[in-house]
C-alpha cells in the first residue's frame, strides 16, 4: 500500500480505492475481449464479464477453477499450457487460435499472455486477453478465397494477360501468356520490357502514347515474337491505370493469340480466290468449248472433202489433234471450277488407293521407296472413282517428281478420324461425323511456306515453264472440294511435303426415320450453297428432303406456299441476304410457327438474340457444327 494515502486518512483512501475499483472494473468488464488473470497453478483468479458471458456463467463459477476444468484436458495440454509456460518465463505471448465457447461457438481469437509480477519481482500471475478476431479472420479468408478465385479465373482464361509498369517493364503475366510465348517460367518474362517482344519496337512506343491519351485502347493485330523467336499474330488491347495523383500507375494488356483466326481467314480468302478464279476460268472454258466445237466441226467437214491420206488431210488431222489437247485442258478447268457434275457413287477408298499404288509402282524409279499403311479398309466415301483415282495419282506423281533427283520415301497412309476432333482444323461450318484421312508424305524438295497458299491456283507451277500445265493441283482441289473434303499441306524446303486429304465418310443415318413415301421438307437458309450439299447427303434416305434458299424473295416464296411449308427451318448466320432481323419479321408477317434451328458464329450472338427472343428457335448451335449435332437437333426439334 502506498504510504502517502495513509497520511491522508485511511477512510479517504478506502473510498478512493473503491472508486478506483469501480472504474477499473467497469473498464475491464465492458471490454469486448475476454480478460482473465491466472496464477502459476493454471487457476483462474479473476475474469471479466465478457469472459463469463462467453461461458454463459457467472464469475464465482470460474474463479478458483483451473484452465483444465474450463477448456478440457486436451485443449489445455495441446495449445494452452506451452504458451503459458513460455509466458511464465517472462515473455509476452501472442497467438491466434480457433476454439469454442459455450455462447459464441467456434470462433477465431487472438490470445495474448502477459507476465505479471504482483508484490515481488517474480512472475506470479498472467494477464490473459482474448480478442474475438472472427470477423477479421472471415474477411481475411474471404479475401484469400477471392484472390484464389481471381487467380484461377485469370490463369484459366485463354487470353494472355500482362501487367507492365508505365515504362513497359513486365510486372505480371498469367499462364495463358506463358503459353502464347511458349515459355514455362514467368521469370523469363518478368522484368523484361514488353517492347522486346514486339516485332516492331516502334509500334510499342506508339501504342503507349495512345494509351496515355485514351486509357483504354484495342490495337488490333500485332505481331509478337515469342521466346523461340517465332512470330505470333496477337490481338492486343491495353488499359492504363492511374494512381491517386492521376499519374500512370501500370498498364494491363490483354493478348489473344490469333494464329488460328489468321489461318482460317487466309484459308477463307484462298478459297474465295479459287472460287473467283474458278468462275472466271470456267466461263472461259465454256466459251472455249464452243470455239473448239466449231474448229472440230469444220475439220471433220474438210476431212470428208479431202482424199484420205492426202497431205492436206494429214494437216487437218493435226488440227483435230490440237483441238483434242485443248479440250482436255478446258475439261480440267471445268473440273477445277467444279462445273462438271461428278457421278458420285459409294466408293471404297482403300480399293481406289490400292489400284493407284499398283499403277504407280509399275513405273516407280529405283531410288524411290513407296510405303503404305491402311486402316479401316472398308470405309466408303461418295465419289466419282475415276476422279478419286486422279487425285491419288496426281499427288503421288507430284511426290515422286519432287524426289526424282535425290531419291526418297513416299509414304501413303489411310486412316479414319473423328470429325469432332478435327472440327477446328477444317475450314468448314458443317463437319461430317467421320473423315477418311489420306496422307501423302514425300522426302523431296518441299516448298517455301509462301508457295503453299498458292499451289491450288490454276496455272501456278513450281516446275520450269513448259513442264506441266500447272492445272494438276487446282483440279485436285476442285475434285476434293466437290466431295466436301479438304486438303491441308505442310511442307518444309529440302525436307519434303505432306498432303492431308480429308474426305467425309458416307453413311446412311437411321436415327431420323421420316416417311420415305411422303418426304417432309426441311428448309435451309444459308449464304453458302455448298454447305447444303453435305447436309442433304446426310438427310438422304431419312425421309426428309432438304431445300435451300439464300435470298429473301425465295424465302417468302417457299414459306408462302402452305402446301409446301417446311417442317423445320435451319438458319445459318452466314446468309448475307437474309439477316436475322428479316427472318423474324418474315416469320411474324406470315405467322410462321415452324420450329427453327439456329447455326451461328460465336461472335454474332447479339444479332441472333432477336430470333431467340422471338421464341421459335428450338436449338442453337455454334459453328463449326458436326453433322451429328445437326441430326440430333433435327430430331429434338421435330419431336
Amino acid at each position: 500500500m502506498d504510504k502517502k494515502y495513509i497520511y491522508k486518512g485511511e477512510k479517504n483512501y478506502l473510498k478512493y480505492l473503491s472508486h478506483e475499483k469501480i472504474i477499473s472494473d467497469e473498464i475491464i468488464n465492458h471490454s469486448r475481449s475476454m480478460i482473465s488473470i491466472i496464477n502459476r497453478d493454471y487457476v483462474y483468479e479473476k475474469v471479466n464479464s465478457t469472459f463469463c458471458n462467453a461461458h454463459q456463467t457467472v464469475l464465482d463459477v470460474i474463479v478458483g477453477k483451473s484452465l483444465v476444468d474450463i477448456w478440457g484436458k486436451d485443449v489445455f495440454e495441446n495449445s494452452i499450457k506451452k504458451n503459458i509456460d513460455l509466458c511464465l518465463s517472462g515473455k509476452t505471448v501472442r497467438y491466434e487460435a480457433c476454439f469454442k465457447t459455450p455462447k459464441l461457438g467456434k470462433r477465431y481469437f487472438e490470445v495474448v499472455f502477459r507476465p505479471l509480477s504482483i508484490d515481488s519481482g517474480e512472475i506470479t500471475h498472467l494477464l490473459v486477453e482474448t480478442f474475438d478476431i472472427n470477423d477479421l479472420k472471415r474477411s481475411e479468408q474471404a479475401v484469400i478465397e477471392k484472390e484464389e478465385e481471381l487467380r484461377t479465373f485469370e490463369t484459366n482464361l485463354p487470353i494472355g494477360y500482362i501487367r507492365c509498369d508505365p515504362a513497359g517493364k513486365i510486372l505480371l503475366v498469367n499462364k495463358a501468356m506463358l503459353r502464347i510465348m511458349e515459355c514455362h517460367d514467368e521469370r523469363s518474362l518478368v522484368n523484361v520490357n514488353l517492347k522486346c517482344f514486339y516485332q516492331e519496337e516502334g509500334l510499342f512506343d506508339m501504342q503507349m502514347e495512345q494509351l496515355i491519351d485514351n486509357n483504354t485502347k484495342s490495337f488490333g493485330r500485332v505481331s509478337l515474337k515469342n521466346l523461340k523467336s517465332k512470330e505470333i499474330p496477337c490481338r492486343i488491347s491495353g488499359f492504363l491505370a492511374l494512381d491517386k495523383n492521376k499519374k500512370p500507375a501500370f498498364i494491363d494488356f490483354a493478348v489473344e493469340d490469333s494464329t488460328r483466326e489468321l489461318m482460317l481467314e487466309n484459308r477463307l480468302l484462298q478459297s474465295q480466290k479459287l472460287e473467283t478464279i474458278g468462275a472466271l476460268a470456267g466461263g472461259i472454258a465454256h466459251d472455249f468449248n464452243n470455239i473448239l466445237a466449231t474448229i472440230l466441226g469444220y475439220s471433220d467437214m474438210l476431212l470428208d472433202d479431202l482424199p484420205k491420206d492426202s497431205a492436206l488431210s494429214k494437216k487437218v488431222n493435226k488440227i483435230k489433234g490440237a483441238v483434242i489437247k485443248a479440250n482436255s485442258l478446258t475439261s480440267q478447268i471445268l473440273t477445277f471450277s467444279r462445273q462438271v457434275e461428278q457421278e458420285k457413287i459409294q466408293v471404297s477408298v482403300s480399293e481406289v488407293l490400292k489400284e493407284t499404288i499398283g499403277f504407280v509402282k509399275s513405273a516407280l524409279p529405283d531410288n524411290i521407296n513407296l510405303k503404305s499403311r491402311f486402316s479401316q479398309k472398308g470405309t466408303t466415301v461418295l465419289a466419282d472413282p475415276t476422279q478419286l483415282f486422279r487425285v491419288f495419282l496426281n499427288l503421288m506423281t507430284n511426290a515422286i517428281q519432287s524426289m526424282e533427283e535425290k531419291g526418297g520415301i513416299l509414304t501413303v497412309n489411310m486412316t479414319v478420324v473423328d470429325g469432332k476432333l478435327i472440327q477446328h482444323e477444317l475450314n468448314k461450318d458443317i463437319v461430317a461425323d467421320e473423315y477418311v484421312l489420306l496422307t501423302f508424305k514425300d522426302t523431296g524438295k518441299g516448298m517455301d511456306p509462301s508457295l503453299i497458299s498458292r499451289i491450288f491456283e490454276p496455272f501456278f507451277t513450281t516446275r520450269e515453264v513448259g513442264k506441266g500445265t500447272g492445272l494438276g493441283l487446282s483440279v485436285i482441289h476442285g475434285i476434293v472440294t466437290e466431295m466436301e473434303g479438304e486438303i491441308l499441306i505442310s511442307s518444309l524446303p529440302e525436307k519434303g511435303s505432306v498432303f492431308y486429304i480429308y474426305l467425309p465418310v458416307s453413311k446412311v443415318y437411321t436415327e431420323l426415320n421420316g416417311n420415305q413415301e411422303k418426304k417432309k421438307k426441311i428448309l435451309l437458309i444459308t449464304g453458302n450453297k455448298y454447305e447444303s450439299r453435305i447436309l442433304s447427303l446426310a438427310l438422304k434416305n431419312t425421309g426428309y428432303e432438304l431445300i435451300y434458299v439464300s435470298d429473301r424473295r425465295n424465302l417468302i416464296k417457299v414459306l408462302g406456299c402452305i402446301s409446301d411449308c417446311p417442317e423445320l427451318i435451319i438458319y445459318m448466320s452466314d446468309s448475307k441476304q437474309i439477316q436475322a432481323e428479316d427472318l423474324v419479321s418474315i416469320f411474324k408477317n406470315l405467322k410462321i410457327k415452324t420450329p427453327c434451328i439456329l447455326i451461328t458464329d460465336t461472335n454474332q450472338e447479339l444479332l441472333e438474340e432477336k430470333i431467340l427472343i422471338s421464341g421459335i428457335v428450338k436449338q442453337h448451335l455454334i459453328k463449326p457444327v458436326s453433322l451429328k449435332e445437326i441430326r440430333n437437333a433435327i430430331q429434338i426439334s421435330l419431336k
Partner: protein
Amino acid sequence: MPGILLVEDDNDLREMLKASFIRRKYTVIEAENGKDAISHFKPLITDILVTDLIMPDEDGLKVIIKLKELKPTLKIIAISGGGKAGPGSYLNLAKALGADAIFSKPFSVNDLISKIEELLLTEQPV
C-alpha cells in the same frame, strides 16, 4: 428431207453445224436463242431438235419442255459445253426432260450426224 431445228447462240458453231447438216441434205431451221426457237417452231416440218442448253433468253431446257409439249414425237439432241455449277448438270437434266441424246462440246460432227440418222430411222413407222 427431214427438218432440223438448230438452236445455238454461238454464231460460228451454228454456222458450222448448219453447213454440215445441209451437206447431208437436211432442211435446217435455225434460231439463236430459246425464245426464237419456241416462237418460230414449225411442228410439221421439224423432225428433230438440236439445241444448246445455256443460252440467253430462255435456255435449252425450256425449249425442250415447250417443244415436247407442242410435238411429243419430236426427237431431241442436247449439246452443251459442260453444265454450270450446281446440283444436276444441265446435260443430265436435259436427258431427264426427254432429250434422246446428249453431246458434250466439243464433239465430233460425224458422231452427231450418225445419231441424227439413227434417231430419224426409228422415227419412220412402216
